[in-house]
């Protein structure tokens, strides 16, 4: 038991910051990213008695799923609230202003698998091979997703080069 606790603590310490970054990319805010990252590790802890074959991949997938679920729920809530009050400026999380924040906004708007590949490769600094292992696909697929994702990001950033978010 003590050994399991020790191994989980090590796993948590080694992976928390990476999972937090992934959660931020998809959720867009640090407070919600903390909630998501910690929830992902709580769930990993509940399965820690030998059930997880690849816990590093499992906790990342979990965090991404939680973030996307949370974002969908917030968008639905925003739409519902708009029926009773003047519409909010955006249903999206409020990133701090800045050019680089626009990059993560553009990543969030990618199709799911492109967003996952881009986030794992850049935000989590994983190699194409590691991304392929986590996503369960061939390295060529990851390269395709990265290529397509970068093109879409370029198009989105170019469309908002005037300073307005047209999306």
């Amino acid at each position, binding site marked *: 038991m003590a050994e399991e606790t020790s191994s989980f603590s090590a796993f948590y310490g080694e992976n928390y910051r990476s999972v937090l970054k992934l959660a931020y990319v998809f959720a867009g805010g640090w407070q919600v990213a903390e909630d998501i990252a910690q929830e992902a590790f*709580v769930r990993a802890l509940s399965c820690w008695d030998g059930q997880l074959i690849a816990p590093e991949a499992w906790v990342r997938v979990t965090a991404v*799923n939680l973030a996307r*679920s*949370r974002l969908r729920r917030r968008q639905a809530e925003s739409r519902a609230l708009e029926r009773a009050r003047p519409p909010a400026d955006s249903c999206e999380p409020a990133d701090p202003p800045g050019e680089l924040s626009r990059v993560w906004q553009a990543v969030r708007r990618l199709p*799911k698998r492109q967003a996952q590949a881009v986030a794992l490769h850049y935000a989590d600094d994983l190699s*194409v091979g590691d991304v392929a292992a*986590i996503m369960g696909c061939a390295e*060529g697929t990851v390269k395709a997703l990265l290529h397509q994702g970068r093109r879409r*990001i370029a198009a989105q*950033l170019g469309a908002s080069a005037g300073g307005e978010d047209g999306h």
Partner: protein
Amino acid sequence: MDTERPVDDLLRSASRELDRAAAAVAGGAPPAAELGGVRRRAVQRRRVGVAAAVLALVAGAAVVAWRVSPPDAPSLIFDAPAGDEGAEDGEAPESAADPDADPGPGDADAGVGQAGPGADDDSGTEVREVIRLPAEGWQVPTALASDPAGRFVVVGVTVDDADAGAARPAVWVGEDGSWLRAGGQVAESGAEAGEAAVHMTGVASDPDGSFAAVGFTDTVAAGTRPLAWRSDNGERWDSATLPDEAGSAEAVTWTGEAFVAVGAAERGSAVWTSPDGRAWSAVTFAGERGLAAEGILVDVLEYGGRLVLIEQVGDSSRLLAAEPAERGAAWQLREIDSFAGSLARLTGDQETGTLYAAGSQRPDGLGSEPLLLTSGDGQSWDREAIGWDGADHHDAGLHDAAVAGRVLVVAGTADGLPRLWARDPTGDARAAELPEGAGAPPLLAPATDGVLVVGTVEDGAEAHFGVWHWELPDRTGR
């Protein structure tokens, strides 16, 4: 915003900034032993937030009969890394390395594709491999054209290093079932070898069998610049010059009198024209609404003496009609309609005059679904449903469309896998998947008794150029 830096640089800068911020935030993370208590506090915080919103509404002038339930503990949307795709909310995730995971749909035999359950019967569902051309790196076909003699030319890129985003132009030529790669013959239009990413994005043929291709280059020094090439036979290419120093060219077509290329320049959406694919000039427009300053034109089609254009502006697309004028004179331009979503391709049935526009739409801001629009007159458009296999795919879209005989065929992806769908004039529809290993959004070209499908076959870290034939018998009795 500096959008001239390659996106790769921007992502790396953003990642470094993200890492610094995360280091500061992570310093306040609870110890592992306290994670259970953290979960209870997080749920309570969300409930308080929603309750506060409800109280604010009730306290306002308008009382809204609206019940808000505290959100449940976050459900886990299973995003299966291997196999079981499309699981519903609430299901626990499986390990990414689950040895018992379902390997997924598709027939393991090369060259045979399986139709979805919506197919009427087994006929017309076989997708047969014609050829695959192994090559180093990872191939991405992006556009194809055929000349009057039936020679096919496919243009695209070869990506050698995903990390740097480097790409070099690639061309494949097919005739009478034989295919070869002609990529080594493409002049790189002045871009220094090894420093630039050069993309070929569109190709068209004139009645003499000459080809014009367009694309763009992306360099750290010069940014993004539109490019053009010309060839007498599709194998040997010479560079041409588009009269814009910044932007990209996305598609090209032959109008009957000239090549017309579309894309974007510093001024926004842009159109260029050339009588021979060598000398290009920019087109100016007159009309009620011009091209969008923040838009990009992604496809163009000749239709009844006019041109139909797809302009993407943010998450919306406009269909535009342009009437060419004499050289140097302004063209007339008017908007036909606008749609939420990203339209990607135009095609038409020359016999009936029916137009089709294909792309994707994001109905809830996350995930995408196919978008297919149909018009009998080029003015009013209706949406047509695509029934790939009845499943609710979270990430799907259409990338190409073609009319083969009387059959409409569309190609796209669903959950990252290439898919095909065809519908004949009687309304009978059928779907097909490419063989296992096929990747990249497929391209379509009408062929004998069906369509040619051009794409890639993934093999480890490489993706090879592949061609398939999908037999589509015409059931209308013609």
